[in-house]
């Protein structure tokens, strides 16, 4: 038989009288016959697993037990049970049974009190062994109403069972980054534990940049390691290495996002500036006079030798503001260019400007079309108060051109706040894109790469 997870050979191991299990030589997973588990397993929420039963080669299913605290893989046909490395230990703790192996109906064995060592005949009774101090469990933030449990139990509770588990520790939420089955291929150096080639464990990494948690589970233990990202320069300095460290490649799992701290501040500044622009526009729009200060008509014909005309003097009041000029013509299948001058009647200053208009229309294959327009509106900026008159000089190919000119004072430009908002938005969006690009690079190496359809939350 081969392991359904890593395809390594399964070897038969007799763990108690009459109970034979298959253990994976690669990942330490264990296959139990259906009748060889003495503890009751109330499996709920079965769903198809991604592998087949190593015994009968039929599809397996995954189900939850002990209120979702452990996932068990069971063959839908022969009911064989598959446990990944470390899950037997979790099942022992959840069930309170030390030896879960046993024929159904047998009384499961409970943990017994450790027996006192037998004293040799004639010897004085041995003194009771001194109690070994148990180190305290790390501080774990738990949900209200639940008893404190060690991290490996919290990590086993998939808060997002479909995608990625999370672990809460010391007020931080660590998100699952990747799982793997590291296998020892070579051993070099001295170790305070027994290490040999072929050792395998189930490893899971969780990150909350710049912190990370790593869990390694074997058949006999579960080890949690906490770490914190360090810059290469810090490591170089700590070991007094010569020169400079090599350049970074990619993004490390727990590497802090340099844009993470900037984005909230950038968006706050955007909000304040945008509110200011909109507020000023609303104020200016509400207080703008938009008063019509002049309206006059002009007419020229092709026979006119002199086509320039002047209008009546009109008064422009108030603070320096703009003038909205509308030219409305009777153009029809002709063009006209109207050069205009707004001349101060009291000084020698003038605003010189021009506009070209054209209007053509027709019917093509039964469909009507038109091009251009008979009227146009434009703005003369920053005109101070004073007395002005208009001088107009049209050029046209029309035999006769008549047009009206309407001038309004203090008309706020609606496009100005829009342009300001666009200018404010561009750098903020760029910073957001840099932030997302960093996160995409980080998660690209994980078990949960971000795609364009993902909508995951960013890390802090």
């Amino acid at each position: 038989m081969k392991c359904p997870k890593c395809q390594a050979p399964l070897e038969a191991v007799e763990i108690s009288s009459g109970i034979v299990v298959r253990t994976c030589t690669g990942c330490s997973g264990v296959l139990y016959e259906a009748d060889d588990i003495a503890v009751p397993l109330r499996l709920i929420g079965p769903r198809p697993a991604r592998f087949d039963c190593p015994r009968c080669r039929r599809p397996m299913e995954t189900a939850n037990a002990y209120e979702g605290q452990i996932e068990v893989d069971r063959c839908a046909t022969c009911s064989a049970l598959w446990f990944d490395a470390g899950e037997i230990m979790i099942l022992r703790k959840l069930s309170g049974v030390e030896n879960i192996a046993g024929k159904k109906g047998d009384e499961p064995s409970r943990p017994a009190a450790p027996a006192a060592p037998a004293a040799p005949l004639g010897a004085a009774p041995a003194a009771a062994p001194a109690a070994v101090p148990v180190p305290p469990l790390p501080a774990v933030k738990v949900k209200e109403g639940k008893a404190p449990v060690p991290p490996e139990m919290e990590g086993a509770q998939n808060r997002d069972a479909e995608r990625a588990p999370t672990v809460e520790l010391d007020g931080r939420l660590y998100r699952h980054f990747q799982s793997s089955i590291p296998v020892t291929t070579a051993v070099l150096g001295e170790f305070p534990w027994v290490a040999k080639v072929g050792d395998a464990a189930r490893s899971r990494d969780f990150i909350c940049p710049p912190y990370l948690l790593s869990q390694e589970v074997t058949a006999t233990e579960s080890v949690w390691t906490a770490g914190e990202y360090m810059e290469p320069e810090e490591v170089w300095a700590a070991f007094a290495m010569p020169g400079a460290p090599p350049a970074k490649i990619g993004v490390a799992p727990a590497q802090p996002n340099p844009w993470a701290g900037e984005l909230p501040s950038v968006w706050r500044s955007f909000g304040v500036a945008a509110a200011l622009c909109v507020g000023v526009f609303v104020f200016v729009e509400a207080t703008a006079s938009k008063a019509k200060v002049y309206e006059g008509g002009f007419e020229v014909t092709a026979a006119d030798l002199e086509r320039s005309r002047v209008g009546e003097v009109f008064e422009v009041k108030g603070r320096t503001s703009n003038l909205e000029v509308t030219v409305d013509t009777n153009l029809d299948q002709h063009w006209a260019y109207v050069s205009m001058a707004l001349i101060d009647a009291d000084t020698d200053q003038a605003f010189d400007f021009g506009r070209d208009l054209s209007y053509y229309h027709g019917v093509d294959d039964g469909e009507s079309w038109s091009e251009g327009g008979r009227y146009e509106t434009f703005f003369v900026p920053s005109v101070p108060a004073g007395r002005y008159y208009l001088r107009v000089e049209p050029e046209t190919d029309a035999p006769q051109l008549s047009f009206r000119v309407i001038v309004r004072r203090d008309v706020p430009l609606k496009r100005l706040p829009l342009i300001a908002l666009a200018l404010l938005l561009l750098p903020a969006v760029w910073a957001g894109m840099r932030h997302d690009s960093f996160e995409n690079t980080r998660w690209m190496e994980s078990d949960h790469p971000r795609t364009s359809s993902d909508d995951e939350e960013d890390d802090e």
Partner: protein
Amino acid sequence: MSRWYRWYALFVAAAASWALWTGWWITPVERVAGVPKSVRDNPGSYRSHYSSYHRYSGGK
């Protein structure tokens, strides 16, 4: 970047507010000085920057 952006945002907001208040815009308008008062009675004597008189007509 946030410090740079803060000043940039303040500048854009201030510039937009000033433009809204004073009616400033990027319309191509030429400011001309030295316009004689006689133009009122003789508009043909004014030479507009935007009229065809200011375009090259081919003469030497």
